[in-house]
């Protein structure tokens, strides 16, 4: 699997660290504990298909990335920087 880092170009997956599902939305920190927090901490869409996820180019430029990858084929359709990601 190759991930095309916006700064470094296509690099081997071994240079990257997976940082999990990017679909989750952190609730307002001031909101009380409850269903919303439980969902954020424990529940995942676990999609079979397109999946937005965080990676870090830890063995390279150390940039934090949002990768859209197909979990069935491992094909990557987009790689962007976390900075400026407002989805």
């Amino acid at each position, binding site marked *: *699997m190759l991930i095309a880092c916006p700064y470094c170009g296509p690099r*081997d*997956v*071994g240079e990257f660290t*997976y940082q*999990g*599902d990017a679909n989750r939305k952190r609730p307002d920190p001031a909101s009380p504990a409850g*269903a919303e927090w*439980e*969902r954020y*901490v*424990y*529940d*995942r*869409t*676990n*999609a*079979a298909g397109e*999946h937005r*996820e965080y*990676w870090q180019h830890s063995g390279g430029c150390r940039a934090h990335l949002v990768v859209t*990858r197909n*979990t*069935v*084929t*491992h094909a990557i359709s987009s790689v962007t920087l976390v900075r400026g990601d407002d989805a």
Partner: protein
Amino acid sequence: MAEYSVFSLLKNSFSGNRDWKPAWRKPDPKPEYDVVIVGGGGHGLSTAYYLAKEHGLTNVAVLEKGWLGSGNIGRNTTIVRSNYLLPENSRFYEHSMKLWEGLSHDLNYNVMFSQRGILNLAHTPGQLDDFARRGNAMRHEGIDAELVVGAEAVGRMVPGLDVSANARFPIVGGLMQPRAGTARHDAVAWGYARAADRRGVDILENCEVTGFLREGDRVVGVTTTRGDIRARKVAVAVAGSTGRVVKLAGVDEMPIESHVLQAFVSESLKPVLHTVVTFGAGHLYASQSDKGGLVFGGDIDGYNSYAQRGNLPVVEDVASEFVAMFPGFSRVRLLRSWGGIMDMSMDGSPIITTGPLPGMYLNCGWCYGGFKATPASGWCFAHTIARDEPHALSAAFTLDRFRRGILIDEKGVGATPRLH
């Protein structure tokens, strides 16, 4: 179908072994069952068997989308153990171990359960202290555990292991569970299938579930590639496909992530590795099959995946750990590698529960360790389905433990599935 015995062997050998009957029938789906089990893997088949044997429910179908044994029951590294620290886990897995010990007789099928022991290696004094604690916790629960102190003692147990002070991670001891071992994984699927079939369970292969029949909130059956099948109760035991299958029922989120785990087998060698050995400075577990191949595996690849294949960094990682432990194996050639999809739960422990919808029952979240749990998982899931309440041994494994904050986190890494 005839009982397998030395007499049936003799009788069939005189007739040139031409009269053996298939081990299970290939029935057509009936329009309705009491219980439909989605997933014809180890857990689904053992659930069907114990439903029939322990609860008298025989109007049961097991639906398998491919052929029997094509999923994780045929893809694991065959290790059976019950060396857990937390009481919820150790009691459950010890019950499984006891079922394993009588399984071949119970099923009238040789699952080749071999109690060759498992040795977890310790590489630091702190790790050895931790093993002493775990061993004591196990013995407290009546499980066998022996602390092995010193590299020399380890070296006597596992010839070929690098126990020198020059090893990359010098070994200081280990924790041994002598009753642990391995079993022939395909035989477990075939044995449960045959035993369930003999009690009247229909095993429907090439029958993929495409949706759930609903009456209001309630699940009342499934639509499949072989037609609609109604059922009073629908049980789902589909391991890595849990996310996909529950979505068909309209459940979009679960405390599960699917990850790919690779496994490896080498060319056949003469007997050289007599126990199951695990590396303590990384993550590697290895044993030798009866056929002679070294069977081993390590970490999951670490990113969400439904592809039953992995990538090279993990292959390299696992191989380097194996060679660090056994320098003599560096010239052994790899025969095959493959991947299976793990249903990694948020606390590393399984889920056996009623729900998430009325009429539905769910068995998932087995992470790395589904194979050894096969008998107890079926035992407890069958109880849950038949009585609509959890079995005492799986009462802690319900789905609502996340909401209630009562996690069973053996490794203590929190809600990070890729680290369990």
